């Protein structure tokens, strides 16, 4: 994945430079493979050292990954069809380590779509419309800071958000609810800034923070005391 081998060849993370690396069925990957993604994700480059030689490859990619909620795929369908033993669901999600989870900005749950619903639903927005909106938001980001939000450093990000005292207090409240690390709060701000850009707002408001907080990962905070099977 990261590269190496006898000829010190670039890996997938480098091949995906300036593009998208899509990993399907993420928990099925080897733990060490997944952990090796941490450095390239963080630094945008990957250092490889082999006997007598060392080199650095670029690896500025957007990671997109997909996974099922449990081995059988029915957990969270809410109709009692998941027959995974207690603890299996947690173990399956646990194959993605905390540090790796922490580096993912957006977590989106995709509930099962009922067949009837799928056939009936008229798609309200085409990808073209969405793409235009994204391009606009990106333009706005670059105009403001010179780089897209994903490349903003911590301080630049905070100033770009321009949070007022109420919004700051609200961000703290959210972070406490989730028990977030500093990295988690930074992620919240980054996503909130982007949400505000998509909405065409110059300042990040409380509602953008709330929206951003929804895209959190499967946290350790359980619903009550009960394991949700």
């Amino acid at each position, binding site marked *: 994945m990261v590269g190496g081998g006898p000829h010190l060849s670039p890996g997938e993370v480098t091949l995906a430079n300036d593009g998208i690396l899509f990993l399907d069925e993420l928990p099925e990957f080897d733990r060490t493979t997944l952990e090796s993604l941490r450095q390239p994700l963080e630094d945008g480059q990957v250092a490889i050292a082999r006997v007598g030689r060392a080199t650095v490859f670029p690896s500025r990619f957007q990671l997109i990954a997909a996974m099922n909620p449990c081995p059988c795929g029915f957990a969270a369908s*809410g109709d*009692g069809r998941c027959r995974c033993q*207690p603890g299996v669901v947690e173990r399956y999600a646990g194959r993605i380590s905390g540090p790796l989870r922490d580096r993912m900005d957006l977590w989106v*749950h995709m509930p099962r779509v009922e067949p009837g619903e799928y056939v009936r639903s008229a798609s309200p927005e085409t990808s073209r419309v969405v793409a235009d909106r994204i391009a606009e938001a990106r333009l706005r980001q670059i105009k403001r800071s010179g780089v897209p939000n994903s490349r903003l450093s911590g301080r630049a990000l905070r100033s770009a958000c321009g949070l007022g005292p109420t919004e700051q207090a609200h961000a703290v409240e959210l972070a406490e609810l989730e028990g977030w690390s500093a990295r988690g709060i930074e992620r919240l701000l980054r996503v909130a800034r982007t949400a505000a850009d998509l909405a065409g707002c110059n300042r990040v408001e409380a509602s*953008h923070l*709330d929206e951003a907080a929804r895209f959190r990962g499967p946290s350790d905070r359980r619903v009550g*005391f*009960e394991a949700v*099977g």
Partner: protein
Amino acid sequence: MLGVQALGPVSSHRAAETEPTPIASTAMEPQPIDHARNGGDGAGGAARDAERDAWVTLLSVPGVGPVTFGELLAVFGSAGAVIEVASSPIGWALLREALAHHAASAVGERAEVRTARVAMPAVGWDLASRICDGIADGRRATERVRSLGLKVVTLEEPTYPARLRLVDLPPPILYVRGSVEAMAADHVVAIVGTRWPTDKGRLIAGWIASAVARAGAVVVSGLAVGIDGAAHAAVVAEGLSTVAVLGGGHAHLFPRAHERLAEAIAGSGGAVVSELLPDTSPSRGAFPRRNRLVSGMSDATIVVEAGRRSGALITAGWALEQGRECFLVPGPFDAPTSAGCHAFLRSFPGQARLVSGIPELLEDLELDGGASMRAAEPSPGEPRDPRRGEPGSSAIGAGRAAVLASLAPVERALAEMLVEGPASVDDLSRRTCLGAAAILSALTLLELRGLVAGAGGRYVPTGTLASWARSPSARLKRRE
């Protein structure tokens, strides 16, 4: 009948709760013990502790179950005496001799129960010597129980759950983590169901559990994932007591995913109970046996969702067998998760009963909703509103209205929708015709207020929103 073996005469009389059990009657007069205490207080306490230890030691011998144990007690008077005899150099011979005599003299009174057994002594050579060996290192069992901080309640103590005493072959010992008193409540109701419930089933289990608990009953269940867990969790969330009966020993808590739940149960005035030695690992056969304790401890058993072959139906079968009430929550006609409930209702017309709504259930259980309302809103100076007695009409309804009134319109709309059943962001977006961004931020605010929780892309009501007064059936009742 649904995998339930008849284990002797059915005790179909609930009124006779003071009647002594077969074992107790042949054993000794119950000692005047006021409390199940394992610390010991004074000389009487020390003697009591010693006898309790003797029970644990004797029952830790492989092969000594309720029947053998009862016979040993009948002959020797106390477990301490059995151990004393067995500790002598010719202990095994004495044990065997005494039991042979007993068996011969007991032909008359017990013939109808164990016809096949009277001809031979209950304690064979093998078992007699095993008892002697087992007692030699029997200290280990009592040490283990003590080191785990478990309380021991024996059948001869008054704190032993009265209803369980009436069951055929009650477990001689209960190992308890938490409060022993929880099992002695005036009203005890079991709530059980499938380990793979639907979201709605989970919600209903929570509604029923919190309603029943608020009405002053203790909720018993089996700590399994699914319906059992939802019922326990709802009661714990109310800060009331619930009893979990384990299928294995305390040192092998199963499922492990519910360790925190077990801790919360023991911590909130409830109890986690097992009839097995702490180091017994759960086995396939242990769970059906455990189920007879769940129903046996309770006045009534309520099955929320059960597939055709669900273990919850075994509990329901035990309840009828033990002469207790049995209620089943119906589901959609074709739902596999309710097929077992429907089949059971059909198999036992006139015995198994239907849950047609929560106020109706409380009425059928003869539970008073009023007492709980007072507990939920303790204001001593205030005169009590007589209408509070009617479930669903009062303080809790007002509380819900207040909570909803304090919400912004979007949040209120979402809260009202989620009360009807869990939903995803897409569902909510379609039903409210609002954009995802607005819904996401409203959900976060609801979550901050502890009214909603997200699990796997679906949102479920929690806290005050999840309580039974908000259930559709309660609302229907109010409209009448």
